[in-house]
């Protein structure tokens, strides 16, 4: 199995607190990997290390065999690492359409064009509309992002991520804070990407049914350490995981 992403001994400490502790892991290409772990386990921090928001205190990150530990966010996005954010991270005073259009424009590598009116890039807008359609947000295309409800902002995050068309998609709790009726539609969007089979997806989630259903592989983080890795079935059976993490309320959700 080809690993598209690999970390070696990856660690980061905030002051004395080690949020990610010597994580060495391989993410297989075109597979669906999920990361679980209790609140504060370091899942988001791990994503920040993978996508370049943070640089590690120790260890390194490889993408397709290339050492990318020193690369900035911008470059990592350009070589194919896209992510969505757990805490909504959009452009508040721009329209929803413009938020997505900016992502589409970046994907099309139209970066320094200063003369042409942006509307001349009609196809960007069209594509942005299509993406909004996909996440059921097109009726809000002309609202400002700041005025969206929380769940809608989550959808916008996903549309922006999809627009980048990166090979690797890092999804940080995409359905968190959405109303219950909205969740299935978003899961369907993610499943659809999985079905197309040409992307590698890494998902952080708390909803166990979602993980059991979709994952090829599950990683378990606990206090910043990777304590287990395997198929969903193996993880459920894993004793370390059960005692460390699933022992509590999560166990009921699992079975």
């Amino acid at each position, binding site marked *: 199995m080809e690993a598209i992403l690999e970390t070696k001994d990856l660690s980061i400490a905030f002051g004395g607190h080690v949020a990610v502790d010597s994580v060495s892991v391989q993410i297989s290409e075109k597979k669906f990997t999920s990361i679980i772990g209790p609140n504060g386990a370091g899942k988001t921090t791990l994503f920040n290390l993978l*996508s*370049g*928001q943070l640089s590690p205190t120790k260890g390194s990150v490889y993408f397709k065999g290339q050492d990318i530990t020193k690369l*900035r*966010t*911008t470059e990592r*996005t*350009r070589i194919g690492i896209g*992510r969505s954010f757990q805490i909504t*991270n*959009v*452009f*508040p*005073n*721009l329209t929803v359409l*413009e938020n997505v*259009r*900016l*992502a589409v*424009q*970046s*994907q099309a590598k*139209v*970066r*320094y*064009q*200063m*003369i*042409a*009116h*942006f*509307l001349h*890039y009609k196809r960007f807008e069209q594509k942005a509309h299509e993406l909004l359609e996909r996440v059921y947000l097109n009726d809000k295309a002309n*609202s*400002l992002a*700041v*005025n969206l409800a929380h769940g809608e902002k989550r959808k916008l995050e996903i549309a*922006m991520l999809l627009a*980048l068309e990166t090979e690797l998609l890092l999804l940080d709790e995409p359905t968190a804070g959405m109303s219950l009726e909205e969740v299935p539609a978003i899961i369907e969007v993610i499943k659809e990407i999985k079905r197309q089979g040409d992307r590698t997806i890494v998902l952080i989630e708390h909803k166990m049914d979602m993980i059991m259903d979709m994952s090829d592989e599950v990683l378990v983080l606990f206090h910043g350490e990777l304590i287990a890795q395997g198929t969903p079935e193996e993880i459920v059976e894993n004793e370390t995981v059960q005692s460390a993490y699933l022992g509590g309320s999560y166990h009921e959700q699992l079975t």
Partner: protein
Amino acid sequence: MNIRSVEKSTWIFIIFSLLLFIVPFIVTGRSMQFIIIQIFIFAIFAMSYDILLGYTGIISFGHVMFFGIGAYSTAIIMNNMDATVLSFFVAILVAVIIASIVSFIVGALTLRLKSHFYAMLTLALAGLFLVAAEKWRSLTGGNDGFTFRLPEILRESHNLYMLCLIALILFFFGLRRFTKSPFGRVLMAIRENEARTESLGYKVLHYKVIASVVAGVVASIAGVLYALSLRFVNTGVFATDLTIDVLLMTIIGGVGTLVGPILGAGLVEFAHHWLSGLSNVHWIFERWIILYGTVYVLVVIFFPLGIVGTIQSKFTNRTVKGLRDNRKTVGK
């Protein structure tokens, strides 16, 4: 270009521009014409500031340095060359070249800094130019400055009016196109959320440096016209007061609107004029800075979007709340 694809607002601006061409035939008083010329010049200066503050979210307290560069380039060249139109073109060229080099260096060296450090550094740099202009007496005549000669054609108030108006119109439509271009859209993204712009794959520093060069060059042209309109230059063109003026114009008119700063320039210049007429009524009218401070605070509290921004928000659903939230994150 297809006529029908032109936005409605563009037609309105074209009509306004044409009306302004008629004004000097109605307003023939030289002093009133002079005030209007000053408004055009400061409108150009304020628009350049809007590119930084309103579109890219860069707070500079030293933008006056580019204005001063333009003014001194013109004065020094006109003083040392024949008073011809050709020398004037040389002056423009020199102003643009120096302004682009300086704005590039300032941008590339300092735009990596957090916004408040950047603001402080630009303030210091502008101060440096002020000191240089004071000390390099052989070239600048020190504090007192110097007058210089202009070719006949540029001395005529009517011609000067037309020149400044044409410059204003060209820069307005040029910058408007610039802000609506794919590049300009990325500037607005940076203003809204710099980190997110980076993670979309844009190299934020490049954009900020280019924005700083564009703003610097446009400001230097305003400086060129300013020196031209006075036929005189002194260290006042590097004074922080002017940065404050232009900040006020931009904020009163409405940041990130381009038309706003033009309107703001008009208001502030007329206020200057009328209030100084009142100085024998009460001493407070001589103390700009007190009045300015008050107006500034009131505008920021009650109209954070400025005049044009407030009107626009009535038409779109652009919220004050959103802008305020965003302001808070600017300093992070």
